[in-house]
């Protein structure tokens, strides 16, 4: 794992089932994450993924690549376009920093509407 290493591209199909099951598993009961009628009433085109799930996906993307031995120390994300039901969320990543066992990975999650999430994940690799 060196600076410049790219993570394999990863696609998440944000089906309604995915949006709803992740919202409930993160104990987020806001209606825009499970009730399309209410989401549309509030000006959205559909239900969309909640922030805690985005954080979880970013973490999973990095640990799927880095392996289960690494420790996740920090997840910093900036939120952009919502990821709606039926969107495909495409993740890209690259190692942008390394100091001994401390790695910084830059992650972008993108839908057809633009960047849903950009951020960095700091991990600690085994000695």
């Amino acid at each position, binding site marked *: 794992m060196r600076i410049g290493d790219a993570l394999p591209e990863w696609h*998440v199909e944000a089906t309604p089932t*995915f949006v709803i*099951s*992740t919202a*409930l*598993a*993160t*104990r*987020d*009961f806001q209606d825009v994450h499970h009730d399309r009628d209410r989401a549309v009433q509030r000006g959205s085109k559909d239900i969309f993924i909640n*922030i*805690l*799930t985005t*954080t*979880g*996906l*970013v*973490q*999973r993307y990095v*640990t*799927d690549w880095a392996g*289960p031995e690494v*420790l*996740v*120390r*920090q*997840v*910093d*994300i*900036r*939120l952009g376009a919502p990821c709606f039901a039926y969107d495909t969320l495409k993740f890209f990543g690259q190692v942008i920093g390394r100091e001994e066992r401390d790695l910084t990975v830059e992650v972008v999650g993108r839908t057809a509407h*633009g960047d849903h999430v950009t951020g960095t994940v700091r991990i600690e690799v085994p000695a």
Partner: protein
Amino acid sequence: MIDIEEEAARIAGQGGSAPRLARDPVNLPMINNWLEAIGDEHPGYTEVAPPAMVQVWTMAGLRGQRSADDPLGQMMAILDEAGYTSVVATNSDQTYHRYLKVGEHLSVTTSLEDVTGPKRTGLGEGWFVTTRSTWYVGDEPVAEMRFRVLKYTPASKPEPQPGPRQAQAIRPAVNRDTEYFWEGCRQGELRIQRCGGCGLLRHPPGPMCPECGATKPKYLVSAGCGVVYSYVVHHHPQVPGRRTPFVVALVELDEGVRVLGELAGEPAIGLPVEVVFTEVDDELTMPSWRPRADR
């Protein structure tokens, strides 16, 4: 008139909200529900929780209410009153000091860190509100989150411009070096500059051959076929005469040079494309690209 900065200073001055205890201790059933929903097959979460779950433990729940001393709730109420009625989260920065073990019982406290504004944003005028939450096991801080929202007044959508969109299109700068290209477009030819000395093809046009220095360029008429070498999807800023998003593709011609142009349809690297000419008016015809039908 509400003095937002004064109110923000007052709320920030209250310090952290009273610690709120999680409904449940860190537990395997909730961890497994989370792993299953996220699709995470990480084998290590049998005695510790995924770090990204930290906020899950202290979510208010289905019938949850913000506590009266919650600084984010207080600040939202003040901005609502000031007319900034919409909210969107912009940043979540979580730091995990250590992994949480099954059985540990978390509590959380939140303070107001910063309120800045009014700022003009793409969504409308608003204020950025930043809070800091700290999770504890007993007295030990185990994780922190800096969370930022934009509380804003939705901007009214600009009226769509009347008339044909071509009428307001940006026009190319036509000069002695480029005149042959635009004349070609008017005649339905994609002309590529070719050095009159050494025969090198080059694009975009210029007065001198970078290879041999000759200054007598000629041109070759391209067959107008190529593949997408690279592309961008332009979302922002708005461009006169264009409706965003649109695709600008760098097309590698079969003749070997690369040409920029708008691409109609779904872009992909390596997509076979062909040139199309759109007459804007008597003076100007623009070349652009579309997927090739014969593939």
